[in-house]
């Protein structure tokens, strides 16, 4: 009888595993298999439309050779994008984490107000963020220069000066996306075990010590996953660059996804654009694997030391 019962339970459990994974798997297979494989395949083709029909010519690795030998703008974009990812994501992580801590320790009224305010930028549609910040950062009539003017500074050409443009775009990205980090950090902090925190408060001297030795390690899983997605999203940055500077002046703010947009969409060179996407994909993967290895090695070394 008991054996029979266990068997039913085992069967139910097997069924649960399938039932819980099947929707995700189905969604991926039905909706992403064709687009992704199509994209990867396209990178070996040159596509042209004639007489209303697409003509595919297999060009082997030509798209990749061209990308590695002739495409200066793309590589300027890669360089900018790496700077962009490192600077913007670090700022977002630090700001988002600090602000989540601030909210967590604030009184109940301050807490509601701050949460609402900190989340504001992320709910404004990206097209509005880009268009409006272009106005705000305008040299002639922009709000930013008006404010600077009040204290006798400026005017600064935020977006027209090639040396400043990337920094300005990074600023807007930090402004826009810090709420993403903030929200996840807040959720992470809320889920921490209150008792452990309480014990830590007694054990450690000072708040900084407590954050460093107790909160940060406990938050690591959330931090890592947030970092991962911020890095990926920062390599997909598009709206802000497109609307603020369109990659200029010169190549000052060109980024990878903007190159892909221009090539794949505006110029309709889908094969070549696909090759750019594939190269980007490999680059991000490489960065993630390296970062993972680095973190693991450091953790191992620390453990050995301890």
């Amino acid at each position, binding site marked *: 009888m008991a054996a029979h019962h266990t068997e039913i339970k085992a069967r139910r459990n097997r069924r649960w595993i399938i039932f819980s994974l099947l929707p995700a798997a189905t969604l991926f297979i039905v909706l992403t298999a064709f687009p992704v494989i199509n994209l990867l395949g396209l990178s070996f083709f040159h596509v042209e*439309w*004639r*007489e*209303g*029909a*697409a003509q595919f010519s297999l060009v082997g690795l030509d798209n990749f050779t061209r990308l590695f030998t*002739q495409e200066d*703008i793309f590589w300027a974009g890669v360089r900018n994008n790496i700077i962009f990812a490192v600077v913007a994501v670090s700022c977002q992580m630090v700001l988002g984490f600090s602000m989540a801590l601030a909210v967590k320790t604030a009184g109940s009224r301050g807490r509601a107000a701050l949460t609402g305010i900190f989340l504001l930028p992320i709910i404004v549609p990206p097209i509005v963020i880009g268009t409006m910040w*272009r*106005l705000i950062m*305008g*040299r*002639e*009539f922009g709000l930013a220069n008006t404010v600077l003017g009040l204290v006798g500074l400026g005017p600064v*050409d935020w*977006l*027209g*000066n*090639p040396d400043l*443009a990337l920094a300005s775009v990074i600023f807007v990205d930090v402004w826009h996306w810090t709420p993403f980090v903030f929200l996840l950090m807040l959720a992470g902090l809320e889920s921490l075990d209150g008792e452990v925190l309480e014990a830590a408060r007694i054990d450690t001297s000072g708040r900084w010590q407590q954050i460093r030795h107790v909160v940060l390690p406990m938050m690591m899983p959330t931090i890592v996953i947030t970092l991962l997605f911020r890095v990926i999203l920062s390599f997909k940055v598009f709206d802000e660059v497109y609307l603020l*500077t*369109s*990659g*200029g*002046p*010169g*190549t000052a703010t060109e980024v990878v996804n903007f190159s892909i947009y*221009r090539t794949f*969409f*505006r*110029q*309709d*060179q889908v094969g070549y654009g696909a090759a750019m996407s594939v190269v980007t994909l490999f680059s991000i993967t490489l960065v993630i694997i390296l970062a993972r290895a680095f973190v693991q090695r450091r953790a191992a070394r620390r453990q050995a030391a301890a």
Partner: protein
Amino acid sequence: MHEVFKRKAQRGAVRALAVALLMSAGAGAASAQDKPTVSMAINQSPWLNSFVAMVDQYEKETGNVVELDVSPFGGLLEKIRNSVRASEGSYDIVNVNSLWLSEIYSGGFLAPLADIKADYKLAEGVLSYGNTTNWDSSALTFSADGALLGVPVNGNVQVLYYNTEIYDRLGLQPPKTWEELAANAKKIQEGGENYGFVPRSARDSIVYNFTPYVFSHDAAFFRISGPNEAEVVINSPEGLKALETYVGIATEAGPPGPGNIAQGELIQLIATGKGGQAIAVIAAWGQLQDPNSSRVVGKINAALLPAGPGGTVASSAGHWVAGIPKNVAPEKQEAALAFLDWFAQKQQQVEYVRAGGVPVRGDITSADLGDDAAFGFIEAYSENAQHAVMGLPFANAAEASDAMALSFNRAVIGELTPTQALNQAAADLAGVLERAGFKVSRLPDL
């Protein structure tokens, strides 16, 4: 909508209604729908309301229905591509921007209008904006010898805008040549309060903006020298003169940081009265004459673009052409052509202008419209439209434009000399032409 234009639109609508009533009274049969409903892909724009007024009038006059699917400007190309590339299209008319024309034409998506209605030709007086309504599929370029593929639906070319208040104060005359434009710009700039000339030099738009300089200097980006043969000539001495003129005016008598000035900043500077002169499309006229968006109402004039050393004038075409895709039913194609043909007739075009549109004919004068400041653009528009050019008349225009834009933009911000910029642009253009299947030669480096 803009206040001035709104009044016009209302008056136009009343008149249209009266016409429609008369017509339906005269010919009762016309009110029944005798053609299938036509679906048209079109973009949201300052002139859309005037186009809608014409659609309304057409529906009242004929009983036929034209449905508009309105997209953002930034998304229309994608919608058009999706529809014309499918085995069965969802649009019977696609509204194609001049920048996309060569791609859509060369892809063979549009039905030649003569196949829909035997021997169909554009009505007398309709502008072709440098033959951009016809495509020669053997030479892979726009040509009067090619098949007629579309009917223009909204005219748009560049004009020279200048602020009459500033002009009067400094005693300036509208420039006839680039030297005069530069001289005016310097005088305005020296006053200290205004910018002499606002260039549209951001990477996105610099090739479009630079094109009239090139062609008025009797230069070109490339020339088609035979079947599938092209010669890159942008790096000619004339081309160099054109770029030097462009960079000179942009950097010496304009706002600082011209490398990121796009349409938004240009219109902002002119509409606030800060900029004294600019070259921009006639489509900007409406908002410059609207008190809700402009401080220079009644103080802006439009003129013919300056001529080059040899007296040549050129203006970049920025118009819209409606094409009829091959992948829709023949009855739909016929109904679509009937509407477009009706729309391009002179009577309709006069109404269209009254409703706030830019006509696609060159024969509409102030005599047709009455002496009203709101239509003050029409003479300058017609003059410039006669000189409309398409800078890059081949299938891969977008790719070529993107490639060259970087060099020109870097010349404006001082990263390259004009000579270096032209050599680089020529090399990039040659590469694009080669990939497009041309046998390419190019002038030796400067």
